[in-house]
């Protein structure tokens, strides 16, 4: 099997940013992934780097150090830091079941509660100690001292996803948009202000070089709520977050699952929010190659390799598919290859490594 571990890589975060912003034509294929599932990181650290995996509870310092080392030795120019939790936010409901993924080894998978969130009424809203809710930035603080020369942290943030997964629930939001629009607007406002504070805080951190903002806005055939509601409730806040990042000279990348391609939503994200790159590609909705043809001169393509193909394609077909995606998307630059969604624990690890292998084989 291909060994992806590099002994002495030479990360260059600034060059990666120039490539993704279209300021430099690439001479290499950069690797870009949103994040790796902990099961995947553990396998890489233990089986491929030959180090003992350290759990977060054993040593936060060593836990984050090993993640930096993993990204470094795989050849990334950055480390995708763990996202901090919101402190003092009442715990939303979660669903837990046995994980069917190949690498999970009998552990559980936690799923988003899709029903009602922690706010269903004004009374629920009033009970939340809003002024005590702050974002935990310790993952960045633990990571920063271990970041190696040439690398930076890419921070991860969320806004709309927190609202429909935790605060209101998707069903709750759906009914509330019609039953109590004022409460919806208030929740979006309060949470937006929280996020602005958080964004200001993390953008001031030198070790953080960019933001990967993750807000799933769509499903297979369309957006979760109407594009008009997204433009009214979500887009102005995304624009504000991007402005904060840009004011600090740091790119703002967006991850969103789902079909955002009906209407002008993607144009709004590119032209008004001014996202610097887009992540999450599912070929059944829009492949990276299709996206390249439609938007590739205006925004960077991040990741791009379809998860379903990574799981189910035969090796030769998968290699040809990855190679073709790289060939097409590298034309004109503004591309970093990686998984279409997170590096999940149900992708055969050799198939994930195939992306890295093909990235290294590419020649300008």
């Amino acid at each position, binding site marked *: 099997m291909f060994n992806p571990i590099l002994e002495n890589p030479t990360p260059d975060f600034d060059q990666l940013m120039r490539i993704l912003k279209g300021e430099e034509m690439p001479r290499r294929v950069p690797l870009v992934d949103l994040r790796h599932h902990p099961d995947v990181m553990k396998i890489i650290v233990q089986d491929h780097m030959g180090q003992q995996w350290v759990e977060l509870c054993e040593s936060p310092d060593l836990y984050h150090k090993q993640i930096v080392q993993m990204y470094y030795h795989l050849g990334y120019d950055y480390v995708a830091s763990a996202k901090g939790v919101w402190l003092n936010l009442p715990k939303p409901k979660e669903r837990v079941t046995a994980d*069917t993924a190949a690498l999970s080894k009998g552990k559980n*998978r936690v799923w988003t509660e899709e029903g009602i969130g922690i706010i269903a009424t004004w009374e629920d809203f009033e009970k939340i100690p809003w002024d005590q809710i702050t974002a935990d930035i310790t993952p960045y603080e633990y990571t920063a001292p271990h970041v190696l020369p040439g690398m930076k942290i890419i921070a991860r943030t969320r806004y709309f996803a927190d609202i429909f997964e935790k605060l209101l629930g998707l069903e709750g939001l759906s009914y509330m948009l*019609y039953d109590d629009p004022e409460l919806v607007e208030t929740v979006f406002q309060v949470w937006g202000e929280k996020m602005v504070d958080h964004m200001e805080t993390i953008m001031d951190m030198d070790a953080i070089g960019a933001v990967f903002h993750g807000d799933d806005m769509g*499903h297979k055939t*369309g957006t*979760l709520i*109407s594009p008009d509601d997204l433009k009214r409730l979500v887009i102005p806040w995304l624009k504000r977050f991007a402005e904060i990042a840009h004011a600090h000279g740091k790119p703002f990348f967006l991850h969103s699952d789902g079909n955002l391609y009906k209407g002008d939503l993607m144009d709004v994200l590119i032209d008004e929010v001014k996202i610097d790159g887009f992540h999450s590609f599912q070929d*059944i909705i829009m492949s990276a190659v299709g996206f390249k043809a439609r938007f590739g001169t205006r925004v960077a393509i991040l990741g791009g390799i379809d998860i379903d193909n990574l799981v189910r394609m035969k090796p030769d077909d998968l290699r040809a598919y990855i190679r073709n995606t790289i060939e097409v998307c590298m034309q004109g630059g503004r591309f970093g290859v990686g998984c279409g969604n997170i590096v999940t624990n*149900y992708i055969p690890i050799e198939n994930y490594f195939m992306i890295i292998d093909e990235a290294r084989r590419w020649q300008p």
Partner: protein
Amino acid sequence: MSTLQEVRTLVIGGKAKEIGPKVQQALDEGNPPFTILNNALIDGMREIGYRFEQGDAFVPEMMIAARAMRQALEVLRPHLAKQGVKPIAKLVIGTVEGDMHDIGKSLVIMMCEGEGFEVVDLGIDVPPEDFVEAVRDGAQIIAMSALLTSTMMGMKTVIKAISQAGLRNRVKVIVGGAPVTQEFADEIGADGYAEDASGAARLARQLIDMA
């Protein structure tokens, strides 16, 4: 606008509070319950499903329309029962084992109820034997949903379990979900695949009509 048209409009607009009295008005005017069901409620749900397919309606609009439909049925159901109007078929739905996603499934339930099916929801994380048992209990259609590539393989397991129980020719199996495609449905031996909730209801109806 006729009262039936008004009921249809209230379904489409998701006006749950107003629809009950309007259904009662339609009954008082002498409209047969079956006509109210078909021409106002089912037709209204089909319209919202069509708008969902076209990108003119979204999850919230589907959910409030279904809520209005349920409210209308509260008023209409006793009258339908009196006239012996029965559901067109029994459809049993569930998210396959290991998968706990259910927004898509909820939308399919809404659309299938709106189409006139008796829908039994097995819930999320449903083991294959529960689907098999449902076929034994008279399910004419089994509908399965999955969010992940890793969990959708469970659909194949369910179809295999139904076949091994000797029940495959008694039931039609339809599948859907984020990673599911027509190609995958064919590969695992499902009878049909639909891209969205409205398509699923239409497919289920077609399969029953052909049976």
